[in-house]
């Protein structure tokens, strides 16, 4: 079975995506993301290998141990307020960005980033067309 280090897990779902036996369950509400590792008897350690933070370890089965579970509140977008990602993921992204880049936009959800990009790229055109119509 899998042991989880909750201090390392960032809630990214890699493990759940790659598990060939669908033994890692995910539930997501508007508020939080929950991941539960079912008591797994497989000799497989794909999830361990593909965890970005090395938060997982393959350990011998222990019927008495509870199934590991973690939950992450989702961080809210600075612009629209919608909750969109576990905060540890965003911190990891922020740390990984090339040093030359700003990083505060990480706290905007992707939909708002797209909107901002659309408004930025069209601003000149929109202004010119508005002028023409007035």
């Amino acid at each position, binding site marked *: 079975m899998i042991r989880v280090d909750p201090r390392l897990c960032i809630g990214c779902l*890699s493990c759940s995506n790659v598990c060939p036996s669908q033994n890692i369950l995910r539930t997501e509400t508007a508020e939080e993301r929950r991941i539960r590792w079912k008591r797994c008897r497989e000799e497989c350690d794909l999830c361990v290998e593909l965890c970005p933070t090395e938060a997982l370890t393959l350990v011998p089965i222990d019927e008495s141990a509870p199934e590991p579970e973690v939950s992450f509140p989702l961080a809210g977008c600075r612009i629209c307020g919608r909750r969109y990602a576990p905060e540890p993921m965003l911190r990891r992204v922020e740390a*990984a960005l090339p040093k030359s880049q700003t990083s505060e*936009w990480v706290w905007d959800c*992707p939909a708002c980033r797209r909107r901002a990009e*659309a408004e930025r*790229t069209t601003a000149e055109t929109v202004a010119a067309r508005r002028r023409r119509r007035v």
Partner: protein
Amino acid sequence: MAFYVDITRCIGCRSCEVACERVHGGRGHVQVHFVEDSASVPLFCHHCEEASCAAACFSGALFKEDTRTAFDVEKCTGCGLCSLACPFGVVWTDKIAHKCDLCDGRPEPTCVATCPADALSTDLDHLSRRARSRGARAAAQGGRR
């Protein structure tokens, strides 16, 4: 290589979206946005020189290959870090990442080839030459009437 959009040409017909979806098995990588009913723009991967999606990718699925940001689906675990690392919000994750592959294997990206308004190009020089000549002509005529 990357795409460039001539915003003044985009007509918001969403042909690039539908075409991209068609050649990528139903999952497209372009999203057309409308601004104040006055302009539209397709949003897609810029193949950034310093690609933050590749920087955030731990598995090596996203990487720079010459000027493009390449994607190796075999290595993707669907962690979603790339989606959160894209400043433009144009990398999607749904079990695996979905992003522009410049229509690898085709002579030209499908969105560019299909654009009815001829608004897209992979050649920035072409677009800026066109814009400059348009501006020069307008000026020669004493500005737009």
